[in-house]
């Protein structure tokens, strides 16, 4: 057991990880966000969405280091008296949840279609890949908006708010599957000509079994790399949709919603309401991006 653990940490991945301070910093930031989001109820100093705890008199308090600041509200409050820091913590939770779920959906859909298209070939592959190509010509955000719009007309009014997050996940998830499909198909095309796949076919294994047990594990590596970048993009997409007002409902705001809300007050002088959520978003996306960069280099055998 200890030998296995030692072997795990001895892997080249960790060595290149430790060598790059930027990557370590990025990982720490991402970890901080993840933990904060996970443990939001305990991390956030206040619960910003409990109307009972809000006091309108606290509204528009600037950050603690300014002259009118209040040590109770480290980063100030917004127009409803909600602690900005707390809204960021809770907002990150939504952003990360939607981000992860959307990426999982895109990756699952994309890999399934990509691997099967690459392995089975023929008309099926042609259809799937043309679908992917067509969708790629349309900007992702438009696709997400469309799916969002369609879903909202289908979902009954009462369930709108509750379903909003899942509609969002669906929208962003479907808008991004072609990327994963293309990558998965490309890797599959390379791997399927290798002799270990031929050996599996000689054994008479079912194609589905070959795809799941042999091709899938070999495809996961590159998918993981673009998955981290995809996570960053999904978070931004969600922020964009929420900013545009078609994302999560205001009762459970994400970072995007917060930025939108704060935007209204930017020019009347309450700059902190939009600035800090924006900084948080930038930091999170940057950290995830850097991690993805490192993963890509770590997986690239030529650079090792």
């Amino acid at each position, binding site marked *: 057991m200890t030998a296995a653990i030692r072997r795990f940490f001895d892997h080249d991945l960790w060595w290149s990880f430790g060598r790059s301070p930027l990557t370590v910093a990025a990982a720490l930031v991402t970890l901080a966000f993840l933990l904060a989001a996970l443990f939001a109820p305990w991390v956030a100093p206040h619960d910003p969405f409990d109307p009972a705890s809000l006091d309108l008199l606290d509204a528009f308090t600037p950050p603690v280091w300014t002259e009118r600041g209040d040590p109770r509200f480290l980063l100030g409050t917004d127009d409803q008296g909600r602690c900005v820091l707390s809204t960021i913590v809770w907002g990150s939770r939504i952003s990360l949840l939607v981000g992860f779920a959307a990426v999982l959906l895109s990756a699952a859909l994309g890999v399934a279609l990509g691997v099967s298209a690459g392995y089975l070939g023929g008309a099926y592959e042609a259809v799937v890949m043309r679908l992917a190509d067509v969708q790629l010509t349309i900007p992702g955000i438009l696709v997400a908006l469309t799916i969002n719009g369609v879903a909202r007309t289908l979902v009954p009014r009462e369930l709108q708010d509750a379903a909003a997050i899942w509609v969002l996940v669906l929208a962003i998830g479907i808008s991004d599957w072609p990327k994963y499909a293309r990558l998965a198909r490309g890797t599959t095309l390379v791997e399927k000509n*290798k*002799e270990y796949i*031929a*050996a*599996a076919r*000689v054994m*008479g*294994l079912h194609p589905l079994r070959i795809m799941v047990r042999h091709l899938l*594990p070999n495809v996961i590596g590159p998918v993981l790399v673009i998955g981290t970048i995809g996570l960053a993009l999904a978070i931004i997409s969600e922020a964009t949709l929420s900013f545009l007002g078609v994302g999560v409902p205001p009762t459970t705001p994400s970072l995007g919603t917060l930025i939108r809300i704060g935007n209204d007050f930017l020019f009347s002088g309450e700059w902190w309401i939009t600035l800090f959520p924006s900084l948080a978003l930038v930091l999170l996306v940057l950290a995830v991006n850097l991690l993805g960069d490192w993963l890509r280099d770590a997986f690239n055998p030529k650079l090792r």
Partner: protein
Amino acid sequence: MSAPPLVAVEGLARRFDVSRPWLARLLAREPRRWLQAVAGVDFAIPRGTTMALVGESGCGKSTVARMLVGLLAPSAGRILFDGTPLDPKAGRKAMAPVRRRMQMIFQDPYASLDPRWRVADIVAEPLDAFGLVACRSERRERVAELLRAVGLSPADGSKYPHEFSGGQRQRISIARALASRPDFLVCDEPTSALDVSVQAQILNLMKDLQERLGLTYLLISHNLAVVSLMADRVGVMYLGRIVEFAPAEELFTRPRHPYTRLLLDTVPDLDLRRRERVPVAGEVPSPIDPPAGCAFHPRCPWANGRCRAERPQPLPVGAARVACHAVEEGRLPA
């Protein structure tokens, strides 16, 4: 000759469609183009023996191998295994009992093992695929037995392929091939990618296994020296046809077909007799557009008008079967 040969092949052929994409063809009014990789091959392999197919790239030997194990469907002809013809349209489940009895070893030790699987799982895959073991401990035992049989240790089962050298990986491939207790092994250039000393180990291993387990081998190779060591009967292929088929001793001491003579002439002379060889000029023509008549005639020093027009049929000559007009007409020096 009471028992039927384990493997027999009649008129086996395979062509590939190398036409341009449909739309391009339509616009240019081009007909389909075919690559005749295998153009009618017949042979039989008695049980417990080794038959070799030799030839250079493009001769079709690998295609024949792949058709035998079911990786490719024949375009024509039939394959008989233990007397029973194999039905190309049979489903996977119906073919499973036959598949279990024939396995394949591949050329590239680096691509023939799934890099993400542990060695024990790789070796046990046929056991799982054919449902040959009842429980985990039986599976573990059988894997250990197989690893030991190829000269590795059971502890190697928990490692990954990249931790092994080329020769060791080839041993793992052999262990996997033996898992389902096959009767017939197709070996596609099993040692071409290995160093000479490692090759010796693997060839010796293959011989030992053949003796112990009564295996029948089809050996695909371009290396005549390896073939002379391992094979009982040899078929020489050129552009999709067998041009000479003979018992090994006969082929190497009395080669008849001009191409066979050419191939033997190219084997380097380690006994340093320093004969000044005159290698035959020219290269293997493209199989898409083979020469008319005898496919070898452009490179053959004995080609005549008949060779350019008429394709020779295989005829018995001594213990061999040779497809050559010059041999038939007795024009060749002995």
